[in-house]
């Protein structure tokens, strides 16, 4: 009974916290969604690769290269293609072609990872590490060469203005506003998450990919080309990472900065684990992690009152930066809800010798 009474003030605090979160939700939701986009794309890339049995910790580097190529392509394309603004998303021809370049860059980097891990059968974690080191080096080298002339990029995508009939709806209007009053890559992410979830669990491709990730030998026996499918999926993951990188330098900002991914590729990996290697779960985790950023900002601007406010004010702001990683460690360690990777994840596939 005593123990129960000890718990009472704590329960009160939890309710206060929930109340505060609900109150600030409409305000922080757009920030959270924006922050979740690069993490979400990185997490989807991770799901795509690891579901088919290739560990990819080079997502951070892949995104960085894509962000750089997208911005740089813009610099060179504007004089050629001009910047006539189309009526939607503030898109210009150069911006759209630059986006394609960024995606292509993501695919190329992923191809290197696929080649090293599938064909060369090098250790996949070392291969990913090298991609990260190389991406940081080469983009850092090139940007400090390029920025001597301080060129302007192709600008950035703008947010869409959804019809007011939707956003003015009572109670749910802000949800439409949050999702639809965004740039093309953010809206695209929502579509991709749902499409990917359906594709992975409801289509032939999805079944085959999962089979290749869980038991490649069995998959090969029923006639699936394990090597080819892994190559294809890792490169498709490159498309996703490329979009994530492009978001950073072409939608969230209009510039490229050295090391601008700032660990988002790694948080994406964490989101993939917390989301148990499913697209929907991974994106949910990305939203959760991003809200850690949103909450820390709103506490600074609009602190909650009373006991809860005092407690939160005592926490160092860095606590919220560390929170996603702590959650991931706790989940990985199996303290709450164990998360288990696909069985053949990380193992190079050897075809059985024809005899």
């Amino acid at each position, binding site marked *: 009974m005593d123990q129960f009474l000890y718990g009472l003030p704590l329960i009160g605090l939890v309710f206060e916290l929930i109340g505060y979160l609900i109150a600030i939700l409409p305000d922080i939701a757009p920030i959270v969604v924006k922050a979740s986009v690069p993490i979400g794309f990185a997490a989807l890339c991770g799901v795509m690769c690891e579901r088919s049995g290739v560990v990819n910790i080079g997502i951070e580097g892949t995104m960085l290269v894509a962000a750089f190529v997208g911005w740089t392509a813009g610099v060179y394309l504007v004089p050629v293609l001009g910047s006539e603004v189309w009526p939607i998303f503030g898109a210009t021809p150069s911006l759209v072609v630059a986006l394609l370049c960024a995606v292509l860059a993501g695919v190329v980097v992923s191809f290197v990872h696929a080649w090293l891990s599938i064909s060369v059968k090098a250790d996949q974690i070392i291969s990913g590490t090298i991609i990260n080191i190389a991406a940081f*080096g080469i983009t850092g080298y090139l940007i400090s060469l390029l920025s001597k002339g301080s060129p302007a990029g192709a600008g950035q995508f703008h947010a869409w203005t959804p019809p007011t009939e939707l956003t003015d709806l009572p109670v749910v209007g802000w949800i439409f506003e949050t999702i639809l009053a965004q740039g093309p890559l953010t809206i695209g992410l929502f579509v991709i998450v749902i499409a990917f979830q359906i594709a992975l669990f409801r289509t032939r491709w999805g079944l085959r990919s999962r089979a290749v990730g869980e038991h490649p030998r069995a998959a090969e026996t029923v006639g699936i080309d394990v090597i080819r499918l892994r190559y294809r999926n890792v490169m498709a993951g490159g498309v996703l990472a490329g979009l994530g990188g492009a978001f950073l330098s072409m939608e969230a900002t209009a510039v490229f900065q050295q090391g601008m991914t700032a660990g988002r590729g790694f948080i994406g990996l964490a989101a993939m684990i917390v989301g148990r290697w499913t697209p929907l779960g991974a994106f949910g985790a990305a939203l959760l992690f991003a809200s850690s950023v949103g909450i820390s900002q709103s506490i600074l601007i609009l602190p909650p009152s009373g006991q809860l406010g005092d407690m939160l004010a005592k926490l160092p702001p860095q606590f919220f930066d560390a929170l996603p990683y702590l959650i991931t460690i706790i989940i990985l360690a199996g303290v709450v809800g164990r998360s288990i990777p696909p069985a053949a994840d*990380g193992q190079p596939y050897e075809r059985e010798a024809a005899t």
Partner: protein
Amino acid sequence: MSDRLSRAWGILALPLISIILSIIVGSLVIIASEWLVAGELKPGLALDAYSALVSGSVGSFRAIVNTLTNSMPLMLGGLAVGLAFKAGLFNIGAQGQFLMGALGSVIVGVQLRESPVIIAVPLALGAGMLAGAAWGFIPGFLKAVSGAHEVVTTIMLNFVAIAILAAAVSGPLNVIGSQSPTTLPVGNAALPVILGRNGTIAIIYAPLMAVLYGWLLFRTTRGFEIRIAGASPDAARYAGMSPKRLIIWTMSVSGMLAGMAGATDLLGATHQMTTTYGTTVGFDSIAVALLGRTSPLGIVLAALLFGAMRTGAGAMQIQAGVPAELVGVLQATILFFLVASPVVKRIFRLKGARTGLEETTTFTSTYGGEATIR
């Protein structure tokens, strides 16, 4: 005699070829990027850049001392990652352990800044090693208890370390009245200089740790267990070793070495800490361990090479106008060719060459599925 020579060639061939290939790729990058950006084709630029790189790193007494100073944290970090590799563990967390080591040493160092050097230095260095060991213990413990893969947990802990460091420096360690958050300098806890202007005692103890590393691995029972566990976990278990204890022990010692690297950088070079304190030493350590193929002598040489490249980078940027980041490109290309060594071997017809990373096949193979350590 020729037998020994061919053995030595077998070990050295791939690292040397990787280094030579990366120099070639690097010069192509220099020439091509200059051509793309400035529109001029200057083949001599690569030569200018490399000669500035060499003279900036080993061209004078002062440059050599700088190279040695820069190499020591890399050496310790390389030993940290190498030890884990030997046991079949991939410690990507060297970066986090490095930061925690630096933080531990600055906390104690600032406290003891007016104590006698003979007390302050060992205690501050020891605190860094202890903090690094603690940060290495966590992923080891988690892996032993729950099978959580050390690659993921150490990556997460790297970011937690960054947050803790920033919170500590902007909070309790912050000097009141300073413009931006920063700690006090470590004063007497700074590593004593024994060579030139900034050559600290790290020049002595880091190579000594490499000797200890070799002794541990090849002359002790524990080292034998580590090598068996790295080569074949099943064999280790059948021989009655306890993989759980071995994992925890190895990760803690690996963390201790990385923490020592952090303490060496802080007490030997920066002497105080800001919220943005952090070098890429932790990540470069992975490169050092791979290039040195986890052997003590190899790690020492690889650390000296990377340390020299870091040191000469500034001179290269000033004298040849080639960005210092080229060093990162060179390091990554060396690694690329090392990892692609099966292909390199085929192209250069190196039958006898050893890739030297045979044991590393074990860590991703333990990544998938439900892991249980028996």
